[in-house]
């Protein structure tokens, strides 16, 4: 344990948790690089095609627009804003630790605030306007679908997996991962920011909820002896550190898969908002992700696109 976590003595000489150690960051960076390089060579060794996968059309194209909408404009704006603030957060968190020093604290918590706003927007947007469960559901069949896909990847002998709905299993797993780690980072980050000076509040090292030290008189006026003073703060820093480090891995792998040539068609959908009909049919099961329900689609120049919303009536954002 000692290698990953830093312990420090509080002013009374008691050993308390302090934060994560630098090694954890180096480990994460190392793992990210190893994962990317490893996947790249593994993928080549399995002979999968280098360039964009051909769209072997099976299902009928009848009634399907040429461009299938995958991400509406609002959700794309959300994604890229969130991505920007996430990148700024990661840079301002880890680049100083790698040696390039600059005034990172303020940028960091401001980016954090932006991230919080985008996530609030996203939660509302996903519940009201998007098919919330298509991303969040994690039932037994979802796992089977994912397992099948995974087994097929490992050895071509295994049977062709069934096609997924709008969000394949690995996407949903990844999304859950991001939700958990970034929420952890945000919650702990807010406590950490509440302890330092900002234009909105004065610094308070003993922020009431985080650190319940013996202070003779606590807020309620009676003597309070809880866990060693300073330990709660240490725990917050550890969680923030772990979440941050995990985000290095997750963001790195996410970006890697996005820029892989064979996935480029998929990545474009987060930029242009749509995928072409062939890839839709090649990779998705229309029953799970039906698009052609006849509702009027917004028509970007050069062809009709079908929005992916299924249930609620479309409301212009």
């Amino acid at each position, binding site marked *: 344990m000692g290698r990953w976590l*830093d312990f420090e003595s509080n*002013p009374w*000489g008691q050993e308390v948790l302090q934060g994560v150690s630098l090694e954890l960051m180096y480990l994460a960076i190392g793992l990210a690089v190893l994962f990317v390089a490893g996947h790249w060579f593994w993928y080549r060794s399995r002979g999968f095609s280098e360039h964009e996968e051909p769209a072997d059309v099976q299902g009928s194209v009848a009634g399907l627009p040429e461009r299938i909408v995958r991400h509406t404009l609002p959700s794309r704006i959300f994604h890229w804003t969130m991505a920007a603030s996430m990148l700024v957060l990661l840079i301002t968190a880890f680049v100083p630790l790698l040696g390039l020093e600059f005034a990172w604290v303020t940028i960091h918590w401001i980016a954090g605030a932006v991230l919080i706003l985008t996530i609030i927007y996203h939660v509302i947007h996903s519940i009201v306007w998007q098919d919330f469960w298509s991303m969040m559901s994690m039932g037994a069949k979802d796992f089977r679908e994912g397992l099948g896909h995974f087994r097929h990847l490992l050895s071509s002998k295994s049977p062709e997996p069934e096609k997924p709905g709008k969000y394949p299993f690995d996407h949903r797993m990844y999304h859950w991962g991001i939700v958990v780690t970034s929420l952890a980072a945000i919650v702990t980050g807010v406590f950490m920011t509440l302890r330092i*000076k900002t234009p909105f509040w004065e610094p308070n*090292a003993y922020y009431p909820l985080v650190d319940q030290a013996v202070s003779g008189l606590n807020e309620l006026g009676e003597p309070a002896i809880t866990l060693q003073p300073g330990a709660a703060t240490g725990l917050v820093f550890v969680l923030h550190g772990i979440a941050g480090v995990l985000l290095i891995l997750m963001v790195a792998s996410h970006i890697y898969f996005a820029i892989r040539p064979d996935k480029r068609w998929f990545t474009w959908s987060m930029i242009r908002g749509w995928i072409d009909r062939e890839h839709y049919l090649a990779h998705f099961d229309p029953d799970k992700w039906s698009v052609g329900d006849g509702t009027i689609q917004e028509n970007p120049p050069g062809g009709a696109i079908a929005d992916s919303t299924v249930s609620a009536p479309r409301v212009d954002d």
Partner: protein
Amino acid sequence: MAIIRDMIPAFELVQPTTVEDALAAMARYGEGGWVLAGGLDSYDWFKDRIKRPEAVIDLGGINELKGISNGQDGLEIGAMTTLTEIVRHERVRSEYILLADAAEHVATPQIRNQGTLGGNISQDTRCWYYRSGWACYRAGGNTCYAAAPQAMNREHAIMGTSRCVAVSPSDTAPALVALDAKMIVRGRRSSKVHDAEDFFIGPATDITRMTVLESGDLLTQINIPGEWANAHFYYEKVRDRGSWDFQLVSVAAAFKTSGNTIDEARIVVNGVAPFPVRLDAVERLVTGVTADEALATEAGEIAIQGSRPLKYNEYKEPMMRNLVRRAVRSVA
């Protein structure tokens, strides 16, 4: 593990006689090496057993780091020159009295006889939370105890803080910034020159250090450019007692004047931030203007804009304001 004070832990002592040997020793020990100048700051750390270097590298034997010589147009002061030498140096007194004045306000005669100019500007902060060995941000921890709502922060910072609210304790630092001095820092393979103003870094940049110096860096010389020789200088230090104490607030100012018009000004205050604060806005205000009481008063007001005092150091605002006023007023 219990805590005990006042007993220097064992260390090896290396006494190089050339800068090369010193740099070699510093490289050899890396983080485990400690560079010792006058030692007044270092012994506090050692005796409290908070810093426990594997080896102490004593610069006392390196004569090339000592003494004051004439530079091309200004002065070249070896980092190991004692403060007393500076106070008594004829040319410093005649052309750069600001530096002599600041050096004379350091602590006590005995400390000035032993303390060095290099040591005075690269000493660590004296925040009593940090110097008690508490695991605050500056010590690599996750808390600033001095910024807590009920903390004892009479001698802490009112501006330029980022989590850490400690102040720069150096008396000669503001004078050197006002004189636009250059700090020569030697590494193993490189030698860099820093403007005095950039030599001191704030907690926003690196909360664990007060200056740019890192292990492996050796401050060898401080050059005073000729540009500010014989300027109109003003130095004042406010402290509790007549000797020993660090400043509550101090001001060091250099004015190029014609009559009582200020042609150019460099005004620096210390004791109010984790680094000596150069008052750019005030300098712009007073440049090219005739100094009078009104200008002095306005200069004081502008100097303290943006300050955010803690519970016990609000007095530093009027104190700083009045010191800047007195500096500008001295030209009138």
